[in-house]
């Protein structure tokens, strides 16, 4: 079984690669959007405490445990054509999957960004203050100082979305040449009893994860 799976990958089947590309596209887009949203929130939470901060953190932490199918269901009930946002015709499009995956990855990235920034050495903040560093320059320096931890946050978010199946299946519809991703294909092929293709895609998923992690860590190390 494993040999045939490897065979499928090596032979360079066009559909297999299209599916892998689609997965990667969705996961990268949603991780980037989530990070753009989570970074400001993380900075706000760690540098400018406000009333209700604890509540926000508790909420974020709880949302990390939200099952993917629940997110799929919630978003479905918002974007179905008979629902409030139905007229935008988002259901069963790549945008729908990305919206779901942003909701999925935002809490985890935001929590980890907050924890990375709040665990910084207090001396650093004091130094910055005495140097008179203000505004966005201060944020940039802080982000730069904790970039390894931030990278872990980003990768955790990426890992959560590239491996999920509930959101992609419910909101994307597993449409061939459009919204079919690695995980939805694995679900489909397993249900058809075609374990070889499912296994081949599973291997690709692992390789993608390894590559993305490796590339990012490698860049950090040598910069």
């Amino acid at each position, binding site marked *: 079984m494993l040999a045939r799976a490897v065979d499928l990958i090596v032979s360079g089947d066009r559909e297999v690669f299209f599916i892998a590309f689609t997965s990667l596209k969705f996961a990268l887009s949603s991780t980037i959007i989530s990070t753009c949203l989570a970074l400001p929130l993380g900075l706000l939470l760690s540098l400018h405490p406000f009333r209700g901060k604890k509540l926000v953190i508790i909420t974020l932490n709880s949302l990390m445990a939200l099952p993917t199918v629940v997110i799929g269901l919630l978003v479905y009930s918002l974007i179905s*054509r008979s629902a409030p946002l*139905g*007229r935008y015709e988002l259901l069963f499009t790549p945008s729908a999957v990305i919206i779901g995956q942003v909701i999925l990855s935002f809490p985890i990235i935001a929590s980890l960004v907050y924890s990375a920034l709040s665990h910084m050495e207090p001396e650093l903040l004091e130094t910055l203050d005495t140097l008179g560093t203000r505004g966005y320059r201060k944020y940039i320096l802080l982000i730069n100082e904790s970039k390894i931890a931030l990278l872990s946050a980003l990768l955790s978010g990426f890992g959560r979305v590239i491996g999920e199946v509930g959101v992609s299946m419910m909101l994307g519809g597993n449409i061939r040449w459009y919204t079919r991703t690695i995980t939805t294909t694995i679900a489909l092929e397993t*249900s*058809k009893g075609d374990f070889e293709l499912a296994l081949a895609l599973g291997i690709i998923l692992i390789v993608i994860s390894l590559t993305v992690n490796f590339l990012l860590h490698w860049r950090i190390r040598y910069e």
Partner: protein
Amino acid sequence: MKFSQKLSQRFVFFLFMFLFLLPVMMFAAGKHEVTSRLRLATTTSTDNSGLLNVLLPPFEKETGMKVDVIAVGTGKAITLGKNGDVDVIMVHARAREDAFVAAGYGVNRSNLMHNDFVIIGPADDPARIKGLSSAAEAFRRIAASSSDFVSRADDSGTNIKEKFIWKEAAITPSGKWYKESGQGMGAVITMANDMKAYTLSDRGTFLSMKSNIDLVVLVQGDKNLYNPYGVIAVNPKRHDGINYKGAMAFIKYLTSKEGQDIIRSYKKNGEQLFYPDVLK
């Protein structure tokens, strides 16, 4: 300090690149969707059998439309049609289809094709149902002997048919032998194979998996096992943005000589899977 400043400048640069590129990327992705799309909700049995892979390309080529196939159980396909999330549905549960049209959710229902269901099970056949001509009688014997039976239990067309046969047999299945799996046809056949259990399957899915499993066909040919497929356009008056024109063109194509010929000539492992109903 200078070094780290340079670094942070680069970081900011990348950040802005992302922020700038993001809308561009999304716009490009949106642009892509200008060509008209037709959303088809259909059953797993038609999709898993591979029929759609030969049936759709000629239509897409002729009309320039792209057909998005959402393969779910019949029950869910009908719900998607009700909510206006798809433009056309292709399903197999006649009573539900008629109710869907009668309630004003669908229009222009058309017969499309048929095949049949078969009762499959282990070759040693502990419930002694092999060769029976009545599906209800076979179900009675399976229940009487408490032989394992795997049910789809997912409101699919096959599951609706199964419940109908239990009703015909005047039995409410329950007990340890009756396994409600909630999974697709392929998964259920695989489960039944592993458990040496009986199950009800459409012939197409069974044929496509035959070479990987030990289960055999035990009961077939009962008129209660007849499995007709229908195609229905979603009523455009119910929701905005329904691709009604596309749906009608699709139904016209499926019931045309071209569509019906493709259905007739589609074979898997040398066996015909579906029989056209419009042009016989």
